[in-house]
């Protein structure tokens, strides 16, 4: 028995390595622990001066909503912007944009330049809302169901096949 023990351990290790390498996994991604929990409470100014502040009540609309954390200084945000425009236009998903640690004028400029996919916006100047949501960097996109519960989080930019392969199926499941 004893002589097979080292071999057994190695077989186990190789199996785990192989499983992890074949799974579609990003070793840098930290899973969100907020999935299945109601979105944290918050109240922040909107990017446009004439709109009331953004609060968690804005997420409970009875239909799925996407909350996108973005910033004008963030390069990947630029890369995923087309996907956001497509989500708002073609798929008619209400999008809420939260500018993370961003100068409001620059955030508005960013949206004016690339187009505004958001139905509502908020300004998280000190990043505290981001921390409450477990955001580790921008962009991150949260899918909220009609009752305000977080159902899915997309880590990093929505580029390549991640819209069709990941985000849309989650969205369809809620609709």
């Amino acid at each position, binding site marked *: 028995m004893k002589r097979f023990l*080292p*071999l057994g351990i190695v077989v186990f290790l190789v199996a785990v390595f192989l499983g*992890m*390498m074949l799974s579609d996994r990003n070793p840098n991604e930290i899973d969100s622990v907020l999935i299945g929990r109601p979105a944290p409470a918050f109240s922040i100014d909107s990017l446009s001066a004439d709109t009331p502040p953004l609060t968690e009540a804005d997420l409970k609309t009875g239909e799925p909503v996407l909350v996108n954390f973005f910033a004008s200084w963030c390069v990947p945000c630029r890369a995923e912007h087309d996907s956001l425009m497509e989500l708002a236009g073609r798929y008619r998903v209400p999008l809420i944009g939260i500018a993370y640690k961003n100068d409001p004028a620059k955030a508005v400029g960013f949206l004016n330049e690339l187009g505004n996919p958001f139905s509502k916006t908020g300004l998280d100047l000190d990043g505290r809302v981001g921390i409450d949501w477990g955001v580790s960097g921008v962009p991150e996109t949260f899918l909220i169901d009609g009752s305000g519960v977080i159902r899915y989080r997309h880590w990093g930019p929505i580029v390549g096949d991640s819209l069709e392969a990941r985000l849309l199926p989650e969205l369809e499941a809620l609709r």
Partner: protein
Amino acid sequence: MAGEIGHFALILALFFALTGAVMPHVGAYRKDTRLMALGDRAVYAQFLMAATAFGTLTYAFVTSDFSVINVATNSHTLKPMLYKISGVWGNHEGSLLFWVLNLTLFGALVSWRGSKLPLQFRGRVLAVQSLLVLGFLMFILFTSNPFERLDPAPIEGNGLNPLLQDPGLAFHPPMLYLGYVGLSVAFSFAVAALIEGEVTPLWARWVRPWALLAWVFLTGGIALGSWWAYYELGWGGWWFWDPVENASFMPWLAAAALLHSAIVVEKRDALKSWTILLAIVAFSLSLLGTFLVRSGVITSVHAFATDPARGIFILAFLALVVGGSLTLYAWRAPKMAPSGLFGFVSRESALVVNNIFLSTFAAVVLVGTLYPLFVEAFGAGQITVGPPFFEYAAAVLMSPLIVALGLGPLLAWKRGNIGRAAQIVIPALVVAAVAGVVLVWQTSGGFVMTAFGLGLAAWLIASVLLEIASRIRLFAAPGKAMTGLKKITRAQWGMSMAHAGLAVILLGITISEAFTSEKLVVMAPGDTADVAGYSFTFEGVAPVAGPNFTAVRGFFTVREGDAILTSLTPEDRVYANPPMNTTEAAIYPLFSGDLYAVVGEAAGAGRWSVRLYFKPMISAIWLGALMMMIGGILSLSDTRLRIGLPTGKKQAQKPSAKAAPKTGPKTVQGARA
């Protein structure tokens, strides 16, 4: 053109590796000595080809030949020559080529120094070594060709991460690679012994110098890496239990265990199958390290850019080499029954305790490094296994080791009784339990751990001195002590030196952890802050422009009492390409410890935030590592242990290798290191 020569040389090397891997076995089967001897020619030819390939790549780097992709992505015309050369092994493809060069170098050395090994056995060893070369060459040629061309060639290269442009880091990887690859020799000897079906005390004597050499290189590589982290990364730490650091630490632990268990095989003809297993495991852990940094399964600061195809290839190779050798082990190990009496008492029992704790620690470091992966694989969320866990494991496992380390050399071989063994094992276990309980229940350890660490270091140093004293009969016959000193062999000095080195490291760790004074303050020019009796006066900052960075340089004057001791000028650098912010700590080493200053960001109104430290005795960590290396080299230089077959009169006088236990303690002790 040069690139094609290198590529061609690698293809030729592949054929020589294939020849070398197959022919000696065929020769052994057919009892054809000429085929067996082909192994020697094959390894020389492999080395020649690998050296040619490595030479051409180095040439491409030195001449900044950007038509080679590897050079274009990793070098730059303005880089100093040292970093052009270190760039050769500072990337994935080049480092693999360096691996192959070392594998073939060690193969050739075994052939050269081992001319007195039995032909069939040497042939098998070289065949295993050639098989490893073959695997790595296939990996290079199929997935990571360093000579791939770029057309059109760019005018300028991408450069090297500025953090890596440092002399400490230029030599840290080659040292480590020499250590990793050095363990391949022990591996090849072990596999050859499994094929042949026997392990003799002589086998242990052949293996040990190679294991020792690899261990010396690993010690040097690890120490250099941690020294670099200490002065370059700028936050005062020197060891982070990062997966890649652990990947170099595990083979080191396994090699240390191997060194000691080989002594038991040599002296007592026991622990044979265990020693074989250790030789396999030590090299497997080296391979695991190369796998981890290249596969992308684990995140680490040190990881190379990852590519799934490479990851799968190297995993397959790992599975084949490690799985294959362990299958052979499972099949053949029962034949390795010890013929010598295994006395669970005295010197060998201390060595067994040593082996238990060294290899357990290696196993636990492995578990801790991979545990987040296991938890994730079984869907139990994501966790981090950070320094607190490894420190706990170190306290539980290293403290009994040190107790045994102190006792072992004082005991004689073979004779002894159960009570004697209990005297080692029981205190060792009590010490382990206390250390573990304290660390688990008391988060920051604190006073108890400090007292404990100091006690262990003192114990170890005392026992080393006591051992020397008893060997020269200092107390029994003080008059003859000088003659006794001269009689101590280099191997014995080596052992004492290495053990004392460990004590010095322990001392450095304990004192610097417990008594570091630290101040995190915002200072305006003219302000003074006191740290551990040294007063740091902040004189202000000035902008500095370097060749490829801009920096803010802070000026501090450090006084002890009224006397000016030194001035410290830490920098906060911003590199342009790639954009990166690094801090350059300013360190002034004193005999009693290091003064350490870091400048941070502007805090408004001309004030700057700064970190000031006094780190007592921290240099002892690297001094101790140096002592360990010197100990290893001393031991290697002992004629009895020189690489290759031991020769000379001493050997001839021995009645028989297997009867070695019968020789008196005096000669026997000579092999301890």
